[in-house]
């Protein structure tokens, strides 16, 4: 069973290496600029400077993304008029898949379309969905990989924290 033990060792080692890189709080750095193609117009991410932005990367085929929509709507409703906005960047290569998703889970916040995934490339996404909290100064402050329902209140506290700055 020597080889099996070696394999187990390899698995454990690689696990350790991967787990090391998932801390959500990051050193503040300017959020890379993005041109956002909304349904009706094109804007820049930097246009939202002065607001706290919850920047969410999603796709119609991603299961946790489905669970994040009701929560993002709730956050938008709660804080949308207090200097906060959700911006969701859709990465579906086919627009009709995104539209079909939104017809069932309507978004009450700006949705940008990036079928080529250029924004995802710029932000070097490690998983789907990935979300970033951007402070009023336009700096990336917190990153989340995946969407965990049980962490919703923690996410909300982070938003409140940045809004209070």
């Amino acid at each position: 069973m020597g080889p099996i033990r070696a394999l187990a060792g390899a698995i454990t080692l690689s696990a350790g290496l991967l787990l090391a890189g998932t801390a959500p709080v990051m050193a503040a750095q300017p959020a890379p600029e993005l041109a956002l193609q909304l349904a009706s117009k094109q804007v820049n991410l930097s246009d939202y400077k002065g607001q706290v932005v919850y920047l969410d990367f999603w796709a119609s085929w991603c299961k946790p993304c489905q669970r994040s929509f009701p929560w993002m709507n709730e956050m938008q409703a709660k804080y949308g008029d207090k200097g906060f906005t959700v911006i969701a960047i859709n990465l579906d290569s086919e627009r009709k898949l995104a539209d079909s998703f939104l017809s069932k889970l309507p978004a009450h916040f700006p949705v940008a379309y990036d079928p080529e995934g250029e924004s995802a490339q710029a932000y070097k996404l490690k998983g789907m969905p990935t979300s970033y909290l951007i402070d009023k100064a336009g700096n990336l402050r917190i990153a989340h990989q995946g969407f965990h329902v049980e962490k919703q209140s923690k996410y909300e506290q982070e938003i409140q924290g940045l809004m209070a700055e």
Partner: protein
Amino acid sequence: MKRKLVGILVLMGVTQLSGCASLGVQPWERDLLAKDEMALGAEGVDLGLDDHIYFSKEATSGGRSFAGGGCGCN
């Protein structure tokens, strides 16, 4: 036997290394792979029924998942 095992591990290693290099997709490029019918165990009920038939009619079972036992089928 031992040679076979070593062979497997080498193959696993190669697959793993190539994972670093050029194989694979970015996380946002999984639209096709995320389809139900692209799951390796898609149509699990069919696979289970087939396994039961072939388990009881042929001398080999398993491979995809556990070979198991579970029936004294004729």
